[in-house]
């Protein structure tokens, strides 16, 4: 297997995630797009770990998974709080700090 096929797959997944973050309005869907981005990063880490035959790539992929789990927990709590306060999770309405 070529290293590049994994890197290109991860790049495509990353860009789809970026599109989702930019184009989506619902806070829930933006969080899902962020998951796509984090998974693309994990593929890169494990692929480079396999290339160099170093276990460090896997270890850092595990750390990323743990941080992503924490991020989803906090993110959903914030979305829930926003829903409770405004009855909507439309991110374009969250413009309280807009100059």
């Amino acid at each position, binding site marked *: 297997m070529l290293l590049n096929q994994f890197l290109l797959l991860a790049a495509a997944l990353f860009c789809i995630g970026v599109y989702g973050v930019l*184009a989506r309005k619902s806070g*829930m869907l933006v969080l899902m797009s962020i998951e796509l981005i984090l998974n693309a990063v*994990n*593929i890169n880490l494990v692929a480079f770990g*396999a*290339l160099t035959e170093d276990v460090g790539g896997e270890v850092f*992929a*595990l750390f990323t998974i743990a941080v992503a*789990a924490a991020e989803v927990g906090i993110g959903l709590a914030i979305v829930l709080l926003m829903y409770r306060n405004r009855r909507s999770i439309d991110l374009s309405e969250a413009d309280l700090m807009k100059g």
Partner: protein
Amino acid sequence: MSNLLAAISSDSDLFFWQNAFFAIFAVTMLYGAVKVVTTSNVVHAALWLVVVLSGVACQFILLGAEFVAVTQVLVYIGAVVVLFLFGVMLTRASMGDDESVADEKRMIASIVGVLLFSVMAFALIDTWSDDRIVIDEPQTVTEVSDSIFSQYIVPFEAVSVLLLAALIGAIVVARKD
């Protein structure tokens, strides 16, 4: 690009099957990812996310990273997606919105995505044109755990504290009072 295709097709029989399964998983993942960011139903998006996450787990197995693959299934498909579905349930006013997104916004986002991908693809093909991954045997759980609990013990403890802080923070933010 033609270098890439020639290099893939010159692989021997075992490598052919590795590449064939890679292609199947990759196409499934990319289709699922596009559905995640385009479907208007939030529940469908969460279920398409399961397809993408299982595809990532399959890629980890192809790369010989068993433990990460199992963790991916347990943490992402087992916990994160369930958390998303709970979130959808608790904020059900958001079901099936997103039709109102302006076409202009979508167009700008897709231009950004395509540009980013073309720059990244050019850089990757330019840099890693024929590096090969050869997997003799998968990296075992023993190696991973030895490494975590010796060389990477400090980041491991930091992640533990981070998870605890995130847990407390989520409760504090979301509770009613």
